[in-house]
Structure formats: structure tokens, C-alpha cells
């Protein structure tokens, strides 16, 4: 077992660095002026990071490429529901039961 001291040290250091990253630019804005190129880039962070989180989670759920799994169709249905309704809850309400149904039918 990892010792309590080791675990606490890792957790506290991770907490400090994570807070520093969260605080970094929030603290700097207003003191420095942001170049227009960076301003433009910021617009694309949300779609790029969300796709970079979502696609691997669906197409490589266990860390290696495997697009043939029930997550993919269930997530497409959930995504369509979110797109139609502009609501995040709809993705869960449609997507999770879709997965259960697929697992029940073909699992």
C-alpha cells in the first residue's frame, strides 16, 4: 500500500499545480495585453478540446482503437438528441437507455 504521507504529498502537490494552472491566465489578464492571434485561437479551444476528449473515449474506450463497440451508436443517438433539443440532458436521457438496449439486444 502506498503510504499515507506519499499519497498526501502527491494529492497536495497536484492540487497546488492544478490551481496554479487554473489561476495563470486569469491572474495575468488585465496586466498584459493579449495578441489578436491568441484571441482568435481561443474561439476554437472548446470545439477542439471537446472533440479530443470525446472521440478517443468512443473510438478507443480501452486505450487502443476499437470503433466496433456499442458506445459509438449510442453516443451518435445522444449527440443527435442534444443537437435537436440544444440540451445536454437530452443526450443522457436518450444515450444511456440506447446503450442499455443495445447491450440487452446484442450483448
Amino acid at each position, binding site marked *: 500500500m502506498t503510504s499515507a504521507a506519499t499519497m498526501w504529498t502527491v494529492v497536495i502537490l*497536484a492540487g497546488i499545480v*492544478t490551481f496554479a494552472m487554473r*489561476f495563470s491566465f486569469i491572474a495575468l489578464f*488585465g496586466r498584459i495585453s493579449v495578441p489578436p492571434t491568441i484571441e482568435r485561437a481561443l474561439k*476554437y479551444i472548446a470545439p*477542439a478540446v471537446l472533440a*479530443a476528449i470525446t472521440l478517443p473515449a468512443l473510438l478507443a474506450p480501452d486505450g487502443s*482503437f476499437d470503433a466496433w463497440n456499442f458506445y459509438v451508436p449510442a453516443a451518435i443517438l445522444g449527440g443527435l438528441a442534444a443537437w435537436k433539443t440544444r440540451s445536454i440532458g437530452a*443526450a443522457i436521457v436518450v444515450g444511456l437507455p440506447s446503450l442499455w438496449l443495445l447491450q440487452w439486444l446484442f450483448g
Partner: protein
Amino acid sequence: MSNTTADSRWTDGVRDVAPILLSVAPFGLIFGVTAAAADVPALAAWASSFIVFAGASQIAIVEILGGGGAPLVALVTAIVINARLLMYSADMGRYTVATPLRGKVSVAYLLTDQAYLVTSHRFPDPRTAPSVLPYYFGAGLGLWTTWQIATTLGMVLGASIPSSWSLEFAIPLTFMALLVLAIRDKPGLVAAVVGGLVAVAAVGLPYHLGLLVGTSAGVAAGMASERWFT
């Protein structure tokens, strides 16, 4: 959450984040269950929910240390996973230029994928947005409270939550929905397609680096594609 009104109320922040809590709660439960089952001191694992307050990195710490990994590897992995917060900080900073220091510290502590994304979705342009802070704190505290309760419950309930419920699927589902809502124009679509495909291609990279590689490629592609669509 698609209508953009000028005022910012904390109740609106809570309301917009409420559906997301449907996926944050299972995610928290999963972390709690993982932490309770792992071979790590339980109290420190539990405390990471408010010390680190970033789910994926908390799971990484517990899994690496529980699996006998080196503490330095656990720490570096957690930091790399959380490096995306730098990007959110850069964007949120535009909304908090006039905020006093104490407010900035609170904004930073509560900065998560979901709090950032609902706020930037609701108030796309910081120049026309009012103080977004009431809205942001409503969303952020809703998420924080849910996370603390869910991770604690997960640790207490442990293995009594059946894996056949596939609750972990709520996480990619939420990100899928946030993705659909975040694509506002064609360059945004290009950023998403390139970011996603590069991240899939880079999935074998250590320390979740594929996330940063994919995001950088997506942002660059979105910017480069602007001239095709204007």
C-alpha cells in the same frame, strides 16, 4: 441554454448546469468506487476531491499509486491531464479582467470543463457580456457540491453499484453533447473534426498527451480554415 440574454444570474448558472450534473454525479460515484477499491489511503483519496477538484486526474492518481506506480509518475500524469485548464484559464481571463483578486481566486478554484463551457456558451463575447460571475458561480458551485457528494457516496457505497448500469458512459455522452453545442460555425467544425481525429490517432501517447496534441492541431486547423469560409 441557447438564448443569450444580457444579465447574469446565479440561478441561471445552476439551471444550465443541472443537466450536466446527471453525468457529473455518476463520474463522481465512479471515482469514489475506484478510490475505495484501490490500494491507497482512503482519506487522502477522498480529500483530493476538494484539493485537486479535477476528476480525470484524481482517478489517474488513485490508479497509478494503487497499481504500485511511482509517485512522480502519478503527479506528472495528473498535471498533464489538467493542462487543458490553462486553455480555459486563458479564455475565462477575458471575462474577469475587472474582477478583484479574491474573485479571481474563486473563479480559478472552480474552473472545470463544465463550468467553463456553459459560461462561454451562454456568454460567447466577453466584450458584450455583463459580469458573468453570478452565473459562473451558480454553475461552478453546483458542480463543486455535486462532485463532493457523489465522490463521498461512491467511496461509501463502493462495489455495491452494479457495473451493468454502465454509468461511466454518461461521461463521454456529456462531452458529446457539449461538443455538439460548441460547434457554432464552419471553422469550429473543422477544429472539432481535426482535433478529434488527431486525438484518436495519438491515443497511444503516454500521459494522456493525445488530448493536448489533438486540441492544438484542432485549434490550428480552425484558425487556418477561417480564410476558406469568409
